[in-house]
């Protein structure tokens, strides 16, 4: 599925139920540390899944295995029905289909905002420069930073940088978008502008896996909440149920802690 400006808007977006990302029996170790244990997770096309859990529970690692920034030790990960390639060009192509947004934005510091968004389409997808720029300007417009196109990342606020990072990922026309705590490095007044862009994306039907503790976002946009602790998925439910009546003690304990702040 591609997201374009004329994609249908609104919660009435048809959501076909076929699986897009499938993790089966995934195990991952860092040395002796078992960071992902028996992970089974299926994310359907158009679905928005929020991953939540205490620090060190393996949320980032889970995200990173899906575009193979981290290899797994055993188990199986399928994206759009195909297993993740091992190495080289095939793997690079796979990564191009899986968008990723990092906590620390990671915009290319030596490139302008526009170049940040066009680099992938030009070098990886082989688009002509003009075509890539037109599309990039549309995306920058959509995330509300079109005015900054010729600036460098360091000249933008954190919230603006993160929105550019989302545009950069979208420019690759990804099948699924991974967000690893996209708002936790931001000042409070900038969190909303980024979440708004993400909610808009969800409404347009993008498949999203979002690591976040923003309950507002989970309630508005998520179809499911996945709760992780100590490398395991302990609960998978709809957001309302999770936040009002979590099953496991770990989840109750965790929610108690984040709700206090």
């Amino acid at each position, binding site marked *: 599925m591609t997201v374009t400006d004329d994609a249908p808007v609104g919660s009435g977006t048809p959501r076909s139920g076929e699986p897009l990302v499938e993790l089966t029996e995934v195990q991952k170790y860092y040395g002796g540390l078992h960071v992902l244990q028996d992970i089974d997770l299926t994310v359907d096309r158009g679905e928005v899944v929020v991953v939540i859990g205490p620090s060190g529970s393996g949320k980032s690692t889970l995200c990173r295995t899906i575009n193979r920034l981290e290899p797994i030790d055993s188990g199986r990960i399928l994206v759009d029905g195909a297993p993740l390639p091992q190495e080289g060009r095939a793997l690079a192509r796979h*990564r191009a289909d*899986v*968008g990723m947004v*990092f906590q620390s*934005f990671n915009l*290319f510091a030596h490139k302008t905002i526009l170049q940040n968004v066009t*680099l992938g389409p030009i070098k*990886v997808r082989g688009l002509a420069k003009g075509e890539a720029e037109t599309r990039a300007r549309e995306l920058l417009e959509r995330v509300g930073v079109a005015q900054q196109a010729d600036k460098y990342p360091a000249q933008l606020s954190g919230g603006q940088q993160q929105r550019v990072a989302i545009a950069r*990922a979208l420019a*690759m026309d990804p099948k699924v978008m991974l967000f690893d705590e996209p708002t936790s490095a931001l000042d409070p007044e900038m969190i909303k502008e980024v979440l708004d862009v993400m909610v808009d994306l969800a409404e347009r039907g993008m498949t999203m896996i979002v690591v976040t503790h923003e309950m507002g976002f989970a309630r508005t946009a998520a179809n499911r909440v996945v709760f992780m602790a100590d490398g395991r998925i302990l609960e998978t439910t709809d957001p309302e149920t999770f936040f009002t009546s979590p099953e496991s003690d770990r989840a109750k304990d965790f929610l108690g802690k984040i709700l206090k702040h």
Partner: protein
Amino acid sequence: MDDVFSNFDLVLKAFWMTVQLAVLSGVAAMVLGTLLAAMRVGPVAVLRTVASTYVTVVRNTPLLVMCVFVFFAAPNLGLLVGTPFLVKGTIAVGLYTAPFVAEAIRSGVNAVPLGQAEAARAIGMTFAQNMRHVVLPQAFRASVPPLASTLIAMTKNTSVVAVFGIMEATARMRYFVNRNADDTILIFVVFAIGYILLVELISLGAVGLERRWKAAR
């Protein structure tokens, strides 16, 4: 001293030779050094070993030994036979300087935040694209000061090839000194000024680059 000034064209020619040697060796060293640096940070274990072995071996070899190898040993092995002196000089100085360039760039690569390469991988860039478009351009920016030092040292090192009969600046200086023993100091000053001018050019270039790239970091 009159001898130097009335034959100033010889001085200029000698410095022109030095400039040629420095530019050609500099380009060769930058290309090979960048390649070595990329190999050292790359995913292929064999290439990493090859590059780090080259760096270790050559960095610990005196330039004079490298020159002896290129000018004498290689022709004995049937290599570089009949190659012009300038090219041999370039090969010797280029091969010798490359590991220093590689280390300067590698320190620059280490200064590039990990997230940059990761973001490039995440949008589907191959290792080569990542290096070329994301990591190395930023690494070069961080490497300008050590690279300038390396290139300055290299420019002065080109004088070593004088031993092998290339009439670059230092060889020409010795020629004048031999003919005018009384003016040794003055002749030395004239040639020293020539080297200082060349080296200052590199420093100025480095300062200019640093200033230009400040905004984009």
